[in-house]
């Protein structure tokens, strides 16, 4: 009896001890919320540098998930509860429109001068501009590029494709010639994820389409829309793209390509470092170019961009200090460091030509060249509806790819749903 009683008491004592909350510090503190590995080793270096520059602040790095949807749900719970922390958050390029419309992130014009903004890629900055205010500052950019096996194209005397028509022919030629059942022509991220919407947008713009026309009207159920979607469906049907591409997220496609099992790969630039690393079987054969367009549309922008910006929590207790910190964190010098340490592609075009960057990571200049053709997803225009619109597009494009609907039907259905959503 005694032993059991003391055990129970011990357990309660233990649980009580654990229940004493960790004492809060009383220093002025900022919390920076950014992915654990996304910004990786560059984060502590830049935090330290910017702490030193500002003086008298201490910044805590809250290492959130690198999976955008998961970090987004953490933000959603924090912001709906009006939590003043984290003070500074890294936002995906498609979030500022939504977050600003909800009043979750603060406009920055009181803290950051108009002139300073001119140094950032305007196409990227636009994604954070709502109603004339800027809500976030670009941190790093990524975008979709076409990676290809230069060695295989050489072997069959093929030019680097610039159009989809050329790409499909080239893929078929190589796959036929290699006669390897495990070799795929084209792989990308066609699972029902945000990346699929990006993919279709790249095809769509390459066919001369635009999500909204000049008057701001939805413009997807068009000739360009049908052409882009039919081409994707056709690539699946003809076997240029393997069936499993419908489960692929970007890295699944990267792995297949890196294992010498695909000729073309269309995903974001994060793959470049891995494809060219010493262990990579394709390190000597891989090269990259801009995303193709359809014949006769060479002027279209086909580089769909992604990437992250930094924003200030609207409920932060120190928005001015936070904004200054962001300025430092995204400065020219910081972006050089981020490029060299973590291979992050700068959002200030000037950095692409920086000698240290050109020498340290020549791939960055090559990637930077494709951002001439950059365009952002329609997130700033659609505000709080963007997540749902993207979901509708992912679902309808998937339906067409799975053969559940014709491309025409899928686009008509998407149009109807989006129009019902937007007043």
């Amino acid at each position, binding site marked *: 009896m005694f032993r059991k009683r003391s055990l129970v008491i011990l357990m309660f004592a233990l649980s009580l001890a654990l229940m004493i909350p960790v004492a809060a510090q009383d220093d002025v503190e900022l919390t920076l919320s950014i992915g654990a590995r996304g910004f990786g080793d560059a984060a502590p270096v830049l935090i330290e540098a910017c702490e030193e520059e500002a003086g008298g602040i201490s910044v805590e790095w809250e290492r959130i998930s690198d999976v955008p*949807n998961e970090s987004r749900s953490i933000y959603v*719970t924090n912001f*709906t509860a009006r939590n003043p922390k984290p003070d500074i958050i890294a936002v995906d390029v498609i979030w500022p429109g939504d977050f600003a419309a909800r009043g979750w992130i603060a406009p920055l014009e009181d803290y950051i001068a108009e002139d300073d903004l001119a140094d950032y890629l305007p196409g990227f900055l636009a994604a954070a501009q709502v109603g004339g205010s800027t809500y976030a500052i670009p941190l790093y950019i990524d975008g979709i590029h076409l990676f290809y096996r230069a060695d295989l194209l050489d072997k069959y005397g093929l030019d680097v494709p610039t159009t989809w028509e050329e790409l499909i022919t080239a893929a078929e030629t190589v796959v036929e010639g290699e006669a390897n059942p495990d070799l795929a022509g084209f792989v990308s991220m066609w699972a029902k994820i945000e990346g699929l919407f990006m993919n279709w947008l790249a095809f769509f713009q390459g066919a001369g389409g635009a999500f909204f026309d000049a008057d701001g009207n939805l413009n997807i159920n068009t000739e360009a829309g049908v052409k882009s979607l039919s081409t994707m469906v056709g690539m699946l049907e003809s076997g240029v793209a*393997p069936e499993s591409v*419908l489960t692929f997220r970007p890295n*699944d496609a990267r*792995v297949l390509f890196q294992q010498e099992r695909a000729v073309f790969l269309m995903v974001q630039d994060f793959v470049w470092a891995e494809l060219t690393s010493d262990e990579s079987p394709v390190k000597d054969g891989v090269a990259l170019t801009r995303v193709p367009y359809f014949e006769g549309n060479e002027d279209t922008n086909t580089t769909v961009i992604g990437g992250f910006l930094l924003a200030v929590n609207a409920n932060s207790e120190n928005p001015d200090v936070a904004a200054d910190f962001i300025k430092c964190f995204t400065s020219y010098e910081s972006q050089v460091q981020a490029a060299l340490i973590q291979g992050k592609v700068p959002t200030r075009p000037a950095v692409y030509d920086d000698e240290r960057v050109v020498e340290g990571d020549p791939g960055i200049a090559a990637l930077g060249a494709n951002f001439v053709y950059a365009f952002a997803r329609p997130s700033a225009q659609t505000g709080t509806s963007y997540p749902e619109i993207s979901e509708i597009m992912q679902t309808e494009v*998937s339906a067409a790819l799975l053969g559940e609907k014709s491309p025409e039907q899928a686009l008509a259905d998407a149009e109807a749903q989006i129009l019902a959503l937007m007043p």
Partner: protein
Amino acid sequence: MKHANRAGIYFLVPAVLIIAFVLLFPIIQTVILSFGRNSTSIFTGYEYAGLANYQRLLKTPRFITSLNNTIFFTAVTVPIELALGIALALILNRRFQGKGLVRMAVLFPWALPTALNALMWRWMFNTEFGLFNSMLTDTGLAVERVNWLGAIPTSMYAMMFVSIWKTSSFMALLLLAGLQTIPDDLYEAGSVDGTNRLTEFRFITLPLLRPATLVSVLLRTMDAMRTFELPFNLTDGGPLTSTETLSLYAYRAIFQYVNFNLGSSAILIQFIIIMSISVMYIVIIRRGDM
């Protein structure tokens, strides 16, 4: 033990306080939110919208699909889990060499974290590098790789398979408890009468197992109707919405579209369905007893 006991109510206080705090209050908030519009809190900026969210949901094909998926998933997995659970419980109820290993084998799938388990299976179902496709093509059972998680309806079947694999053992554990409460003298009486094992199972084991069956099926049905982590980590609800469950739909409404009101209504409909199934089930069993 027929006398009333006032102390009984005091004994309930700690548990009831915690339940009120963690479950009851949030539930009330969810109910109120489900009748609101553009509101994320019931205290600030709440706008009453009547039944608008419910009407919208019932007209949303995607919600109906997730409802159908959830019911289909539950209706298929729970009976199979029950059958396998009974078989496993019967195995465990006997004494034999190496029983410890088998017991561990039954406990382990149930004890695995669902989120990680889903990841493990996702790796094995992988179309290009997965174990299953490799085994199929190596043994010549299939020529082409099967697109397990990327095609309709294999994705749903894969999800059901994982669920059955994991939770049959939960059934077995609850049923085993019931099995071992069956007094031995009943079997002894049976063996004196010369019954064979099948009739023994049919006329002694099964009827006496009924209370344990009720509990385990009820718990599993409730759980299956709320399935969230499995599609979340295994299929992400895809392809299309073919494996999207009600919970996943509600999660997306709340955390992705930040529509707390619509999501709350979806959860409430789910809750009402779970309640009705449970009540129906209990009533049917009770009636059967009479």
